């Protein structure tokens, strides 16, 4: 470093450039503080579940996870489409069946499981087990979920496809929603599950 170096580097700075830089710093600081506020305000986390199955065993996971996440303070949406709609159908939800065929956990081989009446029998066995083990019914879980602020949505396209009416569903179920709103919810969500 030579002795000719100016004592103060400020001497070389164009006041206009300094002002520009200061303005840029101010703008960035405002932007950072806005982002901080946005992150803090959006404190509530989101979970979206897409429920596509309508058998008795597959009705439980989405409803249990949804109501539990709500207890953890999550904003939860469950979008029910195709056979997942049966879970929200007030009448059909009380009569969900197990499939005995193709389920290796069933106590009977497939050839016997395919006989008429077998699904009804295994479903009855399962329902008895559910009651004996103090496990809530599907209806109870739906009511609990809605009371906990879970948004249960019924896919409008599937409602039309299966010939259902909006009144067929539990009170509090949202109808008139489609894939776009489900997708939008998923984009914003911290957890997205397909069941």
């Amino acid at each position: 470093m030579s002795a000719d170096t100016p004592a103060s580097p400020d001497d070389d700075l164009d006041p206009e450039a300094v002002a520009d830089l200061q303005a840029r710093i101010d703008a960035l600081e405002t932007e950072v503080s806005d982002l901080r506020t946005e992150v803090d305000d959006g404190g509530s986390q989101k979970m979206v579940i897409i429920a596509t199955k309508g058998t008795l065993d597959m009705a439980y996971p989405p409803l249990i996870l949804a109501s539990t996440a709500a207890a953890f303070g999550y904003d939860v949406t469950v979008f029910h489409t195709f056979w997942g709609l049966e879970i929200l159908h007030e009448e059909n939800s009380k009569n969900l069946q197990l499939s005995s065929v193709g389920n290796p956990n069933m106590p009977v081989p497939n050839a016997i499981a395919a006989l008429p009446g077998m699904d009804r029998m295994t479903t009855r066995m399962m329902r008895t087990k559910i009651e004996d083990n103090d496990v809530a019914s599907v209806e109870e879980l739906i009511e609990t979920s809605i009371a906990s602020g879970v948004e249960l949505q019924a896919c409008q396209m599937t409602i039309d496809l299966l010939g259902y009416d909006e009144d067929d569903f539990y009170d509090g179920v949202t109808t008139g929603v489609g894939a776009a709103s489900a997708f939008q919810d998923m984009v914003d969500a911290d957890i997205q599950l397909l069941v």
Partner: protein
Amino acid sequence: MSTETAAETLDVTGQNCPMPVIKTKGAFDGIAAGEVLEVVATDSGSVSDIAGWAESTDGAELVDQEEATEGGRDVYKHYVRKTE
């Protein structure tokens, strides 16, 4: 819990997962800051579930958990304080 008295007791005996946690959250919302909620459950899974819920929930502090046999069945008691 020897030194503190619960402001409210929630009975979730005879209810299995996920009901104990969901009802705990509901009852917890109803107590005031500083108060303790007692939860009585028969679901053995409630021990880790309620501990995990309290840990993840702002303003909830797990004070104590007890296990006892009452009326021939195992009972799990949880004490959660509202800190804010």
